[in-house]
């Protein structure tokens, strides 16, 4: 396996009886920041537990920071920092002592752990509040404390599960800036699971998208966005005729009123659009390349799986919506 990869899995499968939680996942995560996306039940938690060496994979293999996930779970957990999504703090303890204890649990001696706890609390912006009981903390402060717990031993890889979950705008900003700084100035890697596309896009250069235990997409966000290149036009008059003409021309069109987005289909796409406009007599008032967001990318990928989702929020944030979305019958599911 290549040494510049921090996580690499090959045909990794985890089954719970007949239920396949991870289905032949072959993932390559490079150094830097990577976002892990997927609807509820996609297998994110199972993936985390498997790469942390907490559960045994049914088949396949994987390495994290060069350690085998099947046999070297303890070594992996010594080198990574895990920031759980849910509360993982003793509310009755002072923040500094909680962080110090998390260092001791890694094998640091108490004096070193205390010293590092001060450094970590300072780094996450809680330097002045470190002797306050955690019960008096806001959600943002608790998230920051969890981050401090995970970075106390200066891990090579930080796994952050929904780090900005439930945070207000300021706290969210602080969390994202902190994670970005860890990658850019701290030269550490971050694997970040989130259902907030904007957050992932701000921190990460790469994404891994899981769906129903399978790998839906992985790679650099910029590269993946290329699959969703579109040309946006604003039309004055004869919009319906133009839409039909573009369809006949073999171009894929998404229309909202007078605004249309046409999927980029080679270098002559612009010429073909203008030709259709000339034929139908439609005026094109504006034409430009549309820069897709990660949200758009997500929707496109989901559409390719056969799902008609309006936004990632529907799918990622709401368990009820996520349950509704199932593979179409043609793909072996019970229908959307």
């Amino acid at each position, binding site marked *: 396996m290549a040494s510049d990869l921090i996580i690499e899995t090959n045909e990794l499968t985890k089954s719970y009886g007949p239920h396949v939680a991870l289905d032949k996942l072959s993932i390559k995560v490079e150094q830097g920041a990577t976002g892990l996306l997927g609807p509820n039940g996609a297998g994110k938690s199972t993936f985390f537990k498997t790469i942390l060496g907490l559960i045994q994979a049914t088949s396949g293999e994987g390495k994290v920071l060069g350690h085998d996930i099947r046999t070297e779970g303890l070594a992996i957990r010594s080198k990574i920092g895990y920031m*759980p999504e849910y509360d993982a703090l003793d509310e009755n303890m002072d923040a500094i*002592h909680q962080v110090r*204890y998390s260092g001791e649990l890694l094998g640091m001696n108490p004096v070193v752990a205390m010293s590092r706890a001060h450094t970590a609390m300072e780094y996450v912006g809680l330097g002045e509040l470190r002797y306050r009981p955690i019960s008096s903390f806001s959600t943002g402060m608790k998230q920051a404390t969890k981050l401090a717990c995970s970075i106390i031993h200066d891990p090579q890889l930080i796994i952050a599960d929904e780090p900005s979950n439930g945070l207000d705008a300021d706290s969210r900003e602080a969390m994202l800036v902190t994670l970005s700084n860890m990658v850019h100035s701290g030269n550490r890697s971050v694997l970040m699971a989130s259902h907030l596309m904007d957050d992932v896009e701000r921190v990460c250069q790469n994404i891994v998208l899981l769906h129903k235990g399978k790998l839906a997409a992985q790679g650099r966000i910029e590269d993946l966005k290329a699959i969703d290149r579109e040309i946006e036009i604003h039309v004055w008059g004869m919009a319906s005729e133009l839409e039909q003409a573009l369809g006949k021309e073999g171009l894929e069109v998404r229309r909202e009123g007078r605004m249309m987005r046409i999927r980029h289909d080679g270098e002559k796409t612009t010429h073909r659009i203008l030709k259709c406009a000339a034929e139908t007599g439609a005026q094109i008032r504006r034409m430009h390349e549309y820069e897709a967001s990660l949200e758009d990318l997500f929707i496109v990928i989901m559409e390719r799986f056969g799902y008609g989702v309006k936004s990632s929020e529907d799918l990622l944030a709401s368990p009820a919506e996520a349950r509704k979305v199932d593979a179409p019958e043609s793909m072996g599911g019970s229908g959307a």
Partner: protein
Amino acid sequence: MTEDETIDASMPVTGQSRMDAAWGSESSEQASVAQPVAQTGQVFEQVYVPWEGSLNPRWMRNWAIFRHHVLGIVRKGHRPWGVPTKLVLIFVLIASMTDVALTLLFAVIGEPSLYELWGVGRNNLYGHILGFFPRNMLYYPLVAALLVGGVISEDRSNGTSALYFSRPINRFDYVGMKYLAVATIQAFIIIGTLFLYYFVDILAMGRGWAWILDTFPLFLTTVFCGLLLVMTYTSIGLALSSVSRGKFFPGIALLALLLGTKTLAAIVEGLFDRSILYLISPYDSVAHVGQALIGTNVVYDHPWIWSLASVVAINAVSLYVLSVRVSSMEVTRE
């Protein structure tokens, strides 16, 4: 002024500095620009500080768990035990030393008949560990209930299980160290005071080697019975704590189990003159084994080996429940 220097609040205000700030350079060839030390709107400068140290092996991690729980009784910054728990521990510790105090008192004032009543002997050693009233009716079950209450269940409710299992700690070490910590605190009160009792007698009465050699096996047997009691209470208590998310239920359930089974067995014995039901009572089973081993009057009709089997079975079932529940504790969510 060179390019590397910055102008900030700590810099002395000199004519040169003013000129540098105003004109940006001290000469036409050398540019100098005031640079902010932090970005605008930034409260602190966020600098990631790497750590070059190495992590200690498994024993240090286990020691951390043990230390966290035990030191929490006396020091801030470790596991925050409640004030009522600490007060009860102090009270029971003092109350457990009444025989020590009375031995010392009557030995010092030279009152042989009263000393005989309180001094080290077969019955008094048994009574220190396994006497029912008040020790095993009030003191020790209460201590066990207060200690085991939240030891596992709070990790489940707070989500702090993730703090343990996302680190290089396996479940055996986790539960083993918690078990050891709770048992140690109980043993400090129950067996620690037994040690004190025995050695105070030696010192106060000026015992010789002959007396020590004569009584030491008895003392060791009593220590063994004390360990059996501590293990039984801890096993049951932690098993109850592992099936709960709060600290009230495990504590109350432990008290109900210890005292309820004894009460039920006592009622059955009163009605039918049969002691066999005492096998379901953890306290009575340990007490029966203790009576047989220490050599005091046995008050049960059934063979003591049955009680020993009962103690083993109670511990085995409790540890099985504990291990199953701890193995199901989650890292990603609880």
